[in-house]
């Protein structure tokens, strides 16, 4: 069915429509680049306004110099955020896969328990879950004579992996249930066991449909790593706080926050674009 997506002007009450098709405008490569550039320019504009403000005073260093000076340290902090997000995504994806299988288990108690877990971790605020893990997990783990230390950042990573696990479980469940039952019938008729069917026939077909939402959650997770600064993990926001305290200049505030916002934007916006393009491509087939 053709949707109204082509001409949004008809739907809006005021006659402020454009002749250009909405969908074409959003997804053509040219406009994407323009958007990206446009956003960057916007952000830089904000920063440069702040710079201009400062150039007039001309103290020891200009704000631009300060930003450049601290960039390496900020980069170190930012890469730590990326490390946390990568690890949390890995743990959450693997755990979520098995939790998702539990959601479609043939045994009712397994289904029920996994449903409770999914509801619990999906509907809890991420910050509360972080606090939960930070406080309740021991800082050391004694096992058969070995002591495994759990530094703060590992705890935070696990805390962030929990909601990812729950959300990915739902993605897995949705994808598996979207595969036509005829595939199951054909596989069952060929005497495959349930485990064989899931791993060799159903799951490979699911990967494509799970990829866009999975990437979306990765972007959300990366942005959520900043929460770790609240529970005492030293990541990029902690670094930014220390820089502000060290420099003690109020003109630095807007530029430096714009700067770190820009970094996250440059990392997460391309992910969003790729996700959208993948979604369209897979929907076509």
């Amino acid at each position, binding site marked *: 069915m053709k949707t109204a997506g082509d001409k949004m002007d008809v739907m809006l009450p005021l006659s402020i429509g454009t002749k250009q098709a909405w969908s074409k405008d959003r997804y053509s490569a040219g406009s994407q680049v323009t958007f990206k550039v446009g956003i960057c320019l916007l952000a830089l504009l904000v920063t440069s306004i702040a710079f201009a403000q400062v150039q007039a005073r001309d103290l020891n260093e200009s704000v631009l110099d300060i930003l450049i000076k601290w960039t390496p340290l900020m980069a170190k902090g930012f890469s730590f955020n990326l490390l946390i997000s990568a690890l949390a995504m890995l743990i959450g994806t693997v755990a979520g896969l098995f939790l998702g299988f539990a959601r479609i288990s043939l045994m009712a108690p397994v289904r029920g328990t996994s449903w409770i877990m999914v509801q619990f971790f999906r509907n809890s605020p991420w910050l509360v879950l972080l606090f939960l893990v930070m406080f309740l997990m021991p800082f050391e783990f004694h096992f058969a004579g070995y002591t495994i230390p759990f530094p703060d950042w590992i705890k935070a990573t696990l805390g962030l992996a929990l909601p990812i696990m729950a959300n990915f479980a739902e993605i897995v469940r949705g994808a598996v249930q979207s595969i036509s039952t*005829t595939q199951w*019938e054909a596989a069952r*008729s060929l*005497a495959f*066991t*349930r485990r064989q069917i899931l791993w060799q026939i159903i799951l490979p077909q699911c990967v494509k449909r799970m990829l866009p939402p999975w990437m979306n959650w990765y972007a959300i997770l990366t942005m959520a790593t900043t929460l770790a600064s609240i529970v005492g993990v030293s990541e990029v926001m902690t670094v930014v706080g220390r820089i502000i305290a060290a420099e003690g200049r109020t003109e630095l505030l807007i530029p430096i926050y714009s700067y770190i916002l820009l970094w996250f934007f440059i990392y997460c916006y391309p992910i969003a674009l790729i996700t959208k393009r993948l979604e369209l491509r897979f929907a076509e087939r």
Partner: protein
Amino acid sequence: MIFFEPFLLTGKRSEYVMTTTHSLNPLIQINDVHKAFGSVGVLHGVSMMINAGEAVCIIGPSGSGKSTLLRCINGLTPIDKGEIFVGPHAVHLMPSDKEMIPLRKDVSIVFQQYNLFPHKTTLENIMMAPVHVLGQSKDEVEMRARELLKKVRLTDKEKSYPGELSGGQQQRVAIARALAMQPQVMLFDEVTAALDPETRKEVLLTIRQLVEEGLTSILVTHEMAFAREISDKVYFTEHGLIVEYGSPQQIFDDPQKKRTREFLEQVL
């Protein structure tokens, strides 16, 4: 020899039909099978006996339960009442898929919509089950798979994906996939219904070849001419009951029941 077999035709009408053959060891025995989906009854007491090497066609109007019966034989649809014996397997006693695995190594089914695995090539589709389910060696299975492809005349499509094949080609691959398991019994569920007339011929040719080689087959089909040509026995079902059965000559040339005659008049 002529026998009366009253106990084979159960249901509300206890009438008798003559048959002319009777073996000592039927491969498949279906006794008084009932099946309802919710409140809708589909099978109301069906009984059949099929001997090894026989080709049996089940004909009848839509909704008469033919496909359901087929799926009951390989356990895809559990029955409410009755018994189904396939060789040594007692299908009605198997509670879940796990117990049905030995049964499904002996019974293969070909579906109307082919149901090939879209993410695997033709050759992989055929090879998958024997390797992973039967545990046979890859080389042995590959050789057999290639022979089967030759048999269904699709050797050049070995590396193609199902999405690249026509309906008739996909159906032939589905047949090869079912045969790769070296089953005792083949079930064909209206396998030509989704195909256009030209591609239908290719598939029917393949099936005829298999029947001539002595494969025990049960076909649910609307292809009357084909049914007449290849089957040893024809069953006519309506409203979940067997109305009449016998040799193709008996059913097609000289149907005893009025309903059979009416149905045949409509389709022929």
